[in-house]
């Protein structure tokens, strides 16, 4: 017979009450685990996309114009007097101090061109990386693969009166309209996309680029420093970080995080309250029993140990169950919350350890007053027979 025998036997005797207490705390822990895991998984998913697909630095020629623009390039009607960046200058970007943070450099060449008597803006891109970056593009027809394949924006296709599979002649060369984009609501709707090398040739800009999009491979990497370093290598270029999209997404996620933590805090508080009320009830029900313990020589500290041990055992169970239920909830909810269906659920031992520890701390904290109350019971009052 030890003090823990008394605690264990009491828990066995009061199964329903202890189950209620466990569930109350478990719900709080599960809520926290679900919300933390969801927000971290969603953040990780967005950061992964930013690393893989997102250009977050834009390199453009220095310009004073403010006419039609693509990524900050001023066009001034069908002609523009921008200086282009030399294609060979792009190699200098890979020599910056933080070159290891660069995952992709995607050059583009732009120029006005006449097709079937219509003036259009021709954009030369690397189709493979462009399609990878612009996940929101929906292509009717086929994705362009060859040098003579074109991809048209929906408005450009209407103006030129072409559909996927049709042919267009540009400066004596025949091209195939491989696909037409679904309406994006952006400048892309009015553009004609061709392969980068072919566009350079058509526009007479071999060896030159109009702008470059640079993807930095990291979350939280020194974008500001990288912008400065690239600007030093390309003094004739304007280098800027594409803050808006990134910050917009992160801001939304940040708001969700704060709301989640506030909700989790409320639920945890309620769980702790359930523990407190249940333990106080349990102590008051055991007045006579505690009186017997004190009468036969149990110290106040012995009484406290009995009560707190019961709370600790229940809290540990609630922590384990809460973590399991929380991760299950996150797994179910993530496909609906994340942008991609294949977003990965993050399993983190720190979250596991943290949630179990939190349950233990909360359970003990909520039981401290009931334990103190029990230890201070007057044995003669408690027993009433003496």
């Amino acid at each position, binding site marked *: 017979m030890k003090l823990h025998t*008394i605690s264990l036997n009491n828990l066995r005797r009061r199964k329903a009450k202890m189950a209620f207490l466990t569930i109350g705390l478990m719900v709080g822990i599960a809520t926290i685990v679900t919300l933390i895991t969801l927000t971290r998984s969603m953040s990780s998913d967005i950061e992964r996309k930013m690393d893989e697909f997102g250009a977050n630095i834009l390199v453009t020629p220095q310009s004073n114009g403010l006419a039609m623009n693509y990524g900050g390039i001023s066009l001034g009607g069908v002609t523009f007097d921008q200086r282009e960046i030399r294609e060979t200058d792009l190699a200098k970007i890979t020599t910056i101090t933080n070159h290891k943070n660069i995952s992709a450099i995607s050059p583009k060449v732009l120029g006005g061109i006449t097709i079937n008597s219509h003036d259009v803006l021709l954009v030369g891109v690397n189709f493979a990386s462009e399609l990878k970056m612009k996940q929101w593009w929906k292509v009717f027809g086929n994705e362009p693969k060859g040098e003579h394949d074109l991809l048209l924006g929906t408005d450009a296709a209407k103006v030129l009166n072409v559909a996927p599979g049709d042919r267009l002649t540009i400066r004596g060369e025949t091209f195939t309209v491989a696909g037409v984009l679904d309406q994006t609501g952006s400048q892309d709707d009015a553009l004609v996309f061709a392969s980068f090398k072919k566009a350079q040739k058509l526009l007479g800009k071999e060896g030159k680029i109009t702008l470059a999009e640079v993807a930095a491979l990291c979350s939280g990497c020194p974008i500001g420093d990288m912008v400065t370093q690239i600007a030093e290598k390309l003094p004739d270029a304007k280098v800027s970080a594409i803050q808006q999209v990134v910050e917009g997404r992160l801001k939304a996620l940040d708001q969700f995080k704060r709301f989640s933590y506030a909700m989790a805090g409320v639920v945890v508080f309620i769980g702790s309250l359930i523990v407190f009320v249940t333990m106080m009830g349990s102590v008051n029900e055991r007045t*006579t029993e505690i009186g017997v*313990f004190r009468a036969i020589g149990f110290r106040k500290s012995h009484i406290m140990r009995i009560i707190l041990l019961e709370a600790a055992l229940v809290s540990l169970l609630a922590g384990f169950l809460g973590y399991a239920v929380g991760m299950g909830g996150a797994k179910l909810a993530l496909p609906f919350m994340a942008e991609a269906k294949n977003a990965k659920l993050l399993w983190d031992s720190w979250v596991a350890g943290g949630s179990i520890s939190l349950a233990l701390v909360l359970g003990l904290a909520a039981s401290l007053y009931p334990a103190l109350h029990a230890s201070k019971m007057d044995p003669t009052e408690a027993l009433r027979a003496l």
Partner: protein
Amino acid sequence: MALIEIENLTKHYTSGGETVAALAGVNITADAGEFITIMGQSGSGKSTLLSVLGGMNHPTSGEVAMAGIKLYDLPGEKLADFRASHLGFVFQSFHLIPYLTALENVMLPLAIVKMATPAKRTAARTALERVGLGKKLDRLPNQLSGGEQERVAIARAIVNNPHILLADEPTGNLDSRTSDEVMALFRELNDSGQTVIMVTHNPDNGRYADRTIHLRDGKVVDA
């Protein structure tokens, strides 16, 4: 030197602005091995006297000494330690722990003692055998009769070999035949050297004791 020395003991209670003297200048001595019954009407102060003797009720004034130790000079939790090592209690309503078996109830005072669990089991088994319940170790209290529960309570009180056994109306809830059996058990324990101080309102129980102290209105009327 007497085992128990009570000198000029007074205990006042205040209730609704009124002060009531539960004990008023009580003087009692008891030697080791004595069996003493304390009798009196309801409200005479006998239960208060027992609770003061048991180290659970600080007197308003006076001295209580047991085995040469002034009980209420002991600091803080030392009084609890004294109860654990020197005293055994038998309560009127048995007060067995309902979710512990007879053996576990008897082992309860040993839960705070540094002793190997097998030794605790042996001590508890011996105490239960001594009170005639050697074959009912695994029964829960609600599976025992009133007399058997009282015996378990007595076994719990003697398992740690206390100097003094304090009993508060141990036959209060029992029929006359069972009462006689329980009183015979107390007599048996006393014959083997146990000091017993018993509060009772039943005059028949006095014949088992060496002497009886009568209380009236908080005072000893004869000793």
